[in-house]
């Protein structure tokens, strides 16, 4: 029997939910609004909420000072590239751990996850030196590599959890039917794991898109993605809030749109296996 919920209680819960939702969304909304203000209005106290002189001047300024599309393309290449490369490595690894585990598999999984617990700055100097000495500094391929490595544990963990849900007998059937390991993965495992792979792909594109520590430290001009584009508007000489906001809005817009259209897939991915 469904629970009886009074109208009053519904109203209260709805109000609380909206308040929390708006609180979480507010910084993004504020950034969006600020991007249409002049620099003076942006730092005015008390701040104007909606009634100010709307201007798109910041966007033109930002575009003319630093080429948005160059950074955008860098972000696309780095985030998609690192995610695809990560999947190529992670699918066979997760296969091995899910379907041919040894007694050390759990330890390996924990060890991989533990690398995510270390503060990245701890290895900044050696990483920087390796990048400098191998000529990878400020290259897209260098960023693709480093983002692949830092997100690989998460990709493997997510795929491992999905693969665990696939009955091993189906893969054994494929083996009996004459499929080699590669064909078993391509024709049977991957198509069955498509929903899981899709949500892993989306989540990792978002993580890679937003990653700022390594992209800021290992790129300068040529390979700099949108994180560097935003950061360039926060300088020691002072903050240009309106331009910073315009840059931020432009940087997060693509990933917000991607997230909006794929939210069903993402939610499924994040709660996969919770209820069965």
């Amino acid at each position: 029997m469904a629970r009886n919920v009074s109208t009053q209680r519904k109203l209260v819960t709805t109000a609380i939910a909206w308040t929390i939702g708006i609180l979480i969304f507010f910084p993004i909304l504020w950034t969006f609004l600020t991007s249409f203000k002049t620099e003076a209005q942006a730092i005015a106290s008390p701040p104007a909420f909606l009634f100010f002189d709307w201007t798109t001047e910041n966007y033109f300024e930002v575009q003319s000072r630093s080429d948005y599309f160059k950074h955008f393309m860098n972000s696309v290449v780095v985030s998609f590239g690192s995610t695809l490369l990560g999947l190529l490595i992670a699918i066979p690894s997760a296969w091995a751990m899910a379907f041919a585990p040894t007694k050390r598999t759990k330890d390996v999984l924990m060890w991989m996850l533990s690398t995510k617990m270390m503060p990245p700055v701890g290895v900044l100097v050696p990483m920087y030196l390796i990048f400098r000495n191998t000529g990878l500094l400020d290259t897209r391929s260098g960023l693709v590599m480093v983002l692949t490595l830092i997100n690989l544990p998460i990709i493997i963990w997510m795929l491992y959890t999905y693969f665990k849900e696939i009955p091993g007998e189906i893969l054994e059937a494929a083996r009996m039917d004459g499929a080699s390991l590669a064909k078993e993965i391509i024709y049977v495992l991957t198509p069955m794991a498509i929903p899981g792979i899709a949500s892993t792909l989306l989540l990792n594109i978002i993580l890679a898109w937003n990653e700022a520590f390594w992209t800021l430290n290992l790129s300068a001009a040529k390979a700099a993605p949108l994180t560097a584009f935003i950061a360039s508007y926060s300088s020691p000489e002072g903050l240009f809030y309106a331009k910073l906001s315009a840059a931020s809005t432009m940087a997060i817009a693509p990933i917000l749109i991607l997230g909006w259209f794929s939210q069903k897939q993402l939610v499924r991915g994040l709660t996969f296996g919770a209820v069965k």
Partner: protein
Amino acid sequence: MGSITLKNVSKVFGAHAVIPSIDLDINDGEFVVFVGPSGCGKSTLLRLIAGLEDVSDGAIVIDGKNATELPPAKRGLSMVFQSYALYPHMSVRANIAFPLKMAGEDKAVIDKKVADAARVLNLTDYLDRKPRQLSGGQRQRVAIGRAIVRQPEAFLFDEPLSNLDAALRVNMRLEISQLHQQLKTTMIYVTHDQVEAMTMADKIVVLNRGRIEQVGSPLDLYHRPDNLFVAGFIGSPKMNFISGSQAAGHQAHTIGIRPEHLVLSKDHGTWQGTVGVAEHLGSDTFLHVNADAIGTLTARVSGDFAVTHGDRVFLTPDPQRLHKFDEKGLAIR
């Protein structure tokens, strides 16, 4: 030709020997059933033959060639799994065609073989459906279709009917038997259900704790069980066992008598007792009789025999059908 020979095959998981050591010959074209209680190692043995598990020791010879180290696909065997293990993202057609596609067959050859298999298995109308749109019996037929298109040396069935309801199980049992007569290919069938074993097998292998207790034809096992385990496992309802002074009178440690070999009478006989439960099946009645001197006995009598709970009856074993066992549980002949 699909003869399979196991030589000293053993399987050890950690410190636990699931299969200590097994020798077995399976002739070409035979329908062999591995039967035993759960955990007896019958599925493991099948998986060793399939190549899905590696043997710890010994050799598996298929069709005269040593296949011990061969991967599953190279052994020329097809397997039908308990869960059907169909590829959920592929249509019935693609499922059946999959082994042929893996073998690199021509599209025209694949189409023809799939159509033939579908006709044999009454699946022609379902070729474009996905497995989830089929009933349990149809799914099982698809799994069988996928197994037969390759024309393997032998078929391996791992409890293929245990997910089906009782009526369907009887039908599929018949269909698999008919398929065997049609194809005349070696079949190895694993089940815990002794009725399936008795009705389908040319040869039954009774397994217990990883060891072969007896190998023989269904009637062989029924009439001449080698030991107490086989005597108790084969036959339904179970054989009655009596030990003590009654057995000593027959120069045995234990005597066994099947329920159908006890003669029931209301006024005279060897053992007297009270009817506890009477199960009326119509054609037969199973009586659980609390015999005064020896405990509960099960008897199978004609459905016409009017008897109910609490009646006093006499039971007499047919002396020709009495089984005798020594203190180790081995048959005395």
